[in-house]
């Protein structure tokens, strides 16, 4: 690492790469970073798969009529969206903020909205892998899905928007350690109280009506209506998700601190 370089080596030739290339590169980097992270994989892959297998095989909770996997698979797909769009994204973005990664990127040619687009792409790629894996496992366990795949996709996308807004709001306002603890706590609470593996009708009536307004309840309930019963558009659940998405993304855009 010594000696002088040939003249002209560092001659200025500045310029931003084309925007699609920047977003693609950023999304790919974020996806790789997530897939390399053991804690994140525990959350996004291992826990949902284990819950699906365990609760399908063993009669621990009363899932009502029909096969247990038909009840569980839609809830676990909702949980997969929760784990990636909310918990995973909140934790990684919180630490990126803390380590100055967001600040450093703020001085790069990648615009902020390009960074957000890349994060969204990365979340969608990981979710696609999750849905693929969990569907294969569920089918192996005897799952027989119904309904219109487009409706399922719409629910998954709206759920992603709602959870991304809430995750980014948390990451952009709290300290990284608080985000780490809080995002995991919310994950567990929503896992238990959001109709993922425990049917909401096992809760008292008063609690039920409040729990039904949670984004995870709307997502798992909507997915279950379609995938289990072949229902049409679950308008009520979609409306709940839209409200959460607008409130969450709006608040994140307003209060997110980059440093």
């Amino acid at each position, binding site marked *: *690492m*010594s*000696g*002088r*370089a040939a*003249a*002209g*080596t*560092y*001659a*200025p*030739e*500045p*310029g*931003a*790469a084309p925007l699609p*290339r*920047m977003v693609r*590169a*950023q999304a790919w*980097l974020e996806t790789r*970073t997530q897939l*390399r*992270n053991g804690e994140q994989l525990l959350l996004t892959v291992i826990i949902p798969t284990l819950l699906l297998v365990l609760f399908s095989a063993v009669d621990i909770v009363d899932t009502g009529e029909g096969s247990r996997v038909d009840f569980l698979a839609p809830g676990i797909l909702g949980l997969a969206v929760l784990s990636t769009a909310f918990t995973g994204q909140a934790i990684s973005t919180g*630490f*990126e903020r803390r*380590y*100055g*990664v967001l*600040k*450093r*990127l*703020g*001085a*790069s*040619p*990648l*615009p902020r909205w390009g960074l957000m687009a890349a994060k969204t792409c990365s979340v969608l790629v990981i979710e696609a892998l999750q849905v693929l894996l969990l569907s294969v496992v569920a089918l192996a366990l005897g799952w027989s899905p119904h309904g219109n795949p487009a409706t399922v996709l719409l629910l998954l996308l709206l759920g992603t928007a709602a959870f991304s807004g809430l995750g980014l709001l948390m990451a952009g306002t709290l300290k990284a350690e608080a985000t780490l603890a809080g995002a995991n706590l919310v994950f567990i609470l929503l896992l238990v109280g959001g109709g993922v593996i425990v049917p909401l009708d096992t809760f008292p009536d008063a609690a039920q009506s409040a729990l039904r307004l949670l984004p995870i309840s709307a997502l798992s309930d909507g997915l279950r209506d379609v995938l289990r019963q072949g229902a049409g558009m679950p308008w009520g659940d979609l409306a709940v998700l839209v409200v959460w998405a607008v409130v969450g993304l709006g608040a994140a855009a307003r209060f997110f601190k980059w*440093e």
Partner: protein
Amino acid sequence: MQSAAALEVAGLVKRYGDKTAVDGLDLTVERGTVTAFLGPNGAGKTTTVETCEGYRRPDGGTVRVLGLDPVTQGSELRPRIGVMLQSGGIYPTARAEETLRHMATLHAHPLDVPALMERLGLGSCGRTPYRRLSGGQQQRLALALALVGRPELVFLDEPTAGLDPQARHATWDLVRDLRADGVTVLLTTHHMEEAEELSDEVAIVDGGKVIAQGPPDVLCKGGAENTLRFAGRPGLDLPSLLKALPTGTEAAELHPGSYRLTGTVDPQLLATVTSWCAQNGVLPDRISVERRTLEDVFLELTGKELRS
């Protein structure tokens, strides 16, 4: 566009709550030069630099970087500047080469990544995660990130802090290469030697203002005078020596046989002293010239009390 200075800061004011961090700061950096930005901690250096980088919105005054407003024209400006943050800004698990390659991908005409890694002594740690790099390697990776996009202007925040002497000299060589290739460099540093070695211009900032600016040798010449010392036979005829020297020069025999001249010590003065000694049959011994260093100037201007 090319006629504008690389950096023009006029009357910059930046407050945090009721604390004024920058208080009417003026600074001009010409294209293709290396400027060292010196000042005690808390003087307003980082705030000024971060305002130029577009991170902070000025409360008063104007900032133009490459002729652009960093706040309203940031998207046009950012591809043209390179930023080295003291804090790195790299994810701990990100690998060195991956990080640099990624930054290269965000630019249209990046430098060759392996060559840059090699140049900065990072060739053998491409697959090492950031958190496992030594402090010096982390520092050099942050420097590489600032350069890889072939910027016109780079902001280097204490680029050699914590580096060993070899790495420091290699970094200095790199800054000289940048300058030779026409890149403008603004570097903040606490190393006076670094500022003297590298910079065309030095700006000393304190209390949120630039209190002195100029080429390092000019700054060192002004103000207090320089000193020439020599030893010789005791009891030399100093008034006769002074007659040969420019007015304003002072001479003293500090103790028998030990002499000190103060004034403008230049080659001419030295020649006059030695020829006077020759005429008087004196062999001057241990001649030493003491010039003010940049550190002397810095401490005179900013005082010696410790800053928080």
